């Protein structure tokens, strides 16, 4: 698993190099590959590389989760934009605590980031297995308490 993970990191870095360089001569491609391998090797020696930085285990779940997340983001961004241009600014900010059912730190980060990414809700702090969330409207808070996002992130995490 460890070896497989390292190879995956090398491939990602190499693709990144190719995209940034844009030259496909044999020499430069070889240099790129060598640099990718060296970087991963150094990273191993410095102990800065782990499952969290390159969460390969999520590859299956993410495909199901992201489309739903993007639809959610568009919907809530539209709602927040309507609130902003509303002449009376009808907001009712609340601070609430949401339980999260994720087991791994990666899953928790994913959930917290998803909350922040959807406009209208921001994860402020994590305390135990609860996230302190600031919501712009009561409706947004109710949506979150409904727990659909939590369920989907957990499902995405569990698919690993």
């Amino acid at each position, binding site marked *: 698993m460890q070896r497989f993970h390292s190879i995956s990191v090398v491939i990602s870095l190499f693709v*990144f190099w190719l*995209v*940034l360089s*844009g030259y496909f001569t044999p020499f430069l491609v070889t240099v790129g590959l060598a640099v990718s391998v060296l970087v991963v090797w150094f990273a191993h020696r410095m102990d800065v590389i782990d499952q969290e930085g390159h969460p390969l285990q999520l590859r299956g779940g993410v495909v199901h989760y992201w489309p739903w997340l993007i639809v959610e*983001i*568009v919907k809530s*961004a*539209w709602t*927040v*934009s309507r*609130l*902003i*241009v509303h002449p*009376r*600014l*009808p*907001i*009712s*900010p*609340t*601070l609430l605590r949401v339980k999260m059912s994720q087991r791994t730190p990666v899953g928790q980060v994913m959930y*917290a*980031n*998803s909350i*922040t*990414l*959807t*406009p*209208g*809700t*921001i*994860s*402020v*702090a994590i305390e135990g297995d609860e996230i*302190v969330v*600031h919501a*712009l*409207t*009561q409706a947004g808070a109710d949506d979150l308490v409904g727990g659909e996002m939590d369920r989907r992130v957990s499902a995405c995490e569990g698919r690993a």
Partner: protein
Amino acid sequence: MSQVIDILSALLMSAGGVFCVIGAVGVLRMPGFYTRMHAASVIDTLGASLIILGLLLQSGFSLASAKLVILWLLIFFCSPTASHSLANAAHQRGIKPWQPDQGASSSSKN
């Protein structure tokens, strides 16, 4: 065909521009720090995504589009991290969320 793509990308980019302006207006208009963050996240998500999508249509299938996709991923991974860290720091410093009754002007519950 290229006409259609041009028009589509123009629509997407102007929509993105509109959302950026709306977000900026929100940052200026909202009361209290946390509520401003919600407005800023409109810029980070919808505004940026629509503009990048429009540019993607313009660039077609090339290296530039790959870079734009990377840019988009960067925004999507980093902007919530930055927002959360700011909100967290404000929370630690004891910045209180704005409440409708303490505000000076124009507040009404919906």
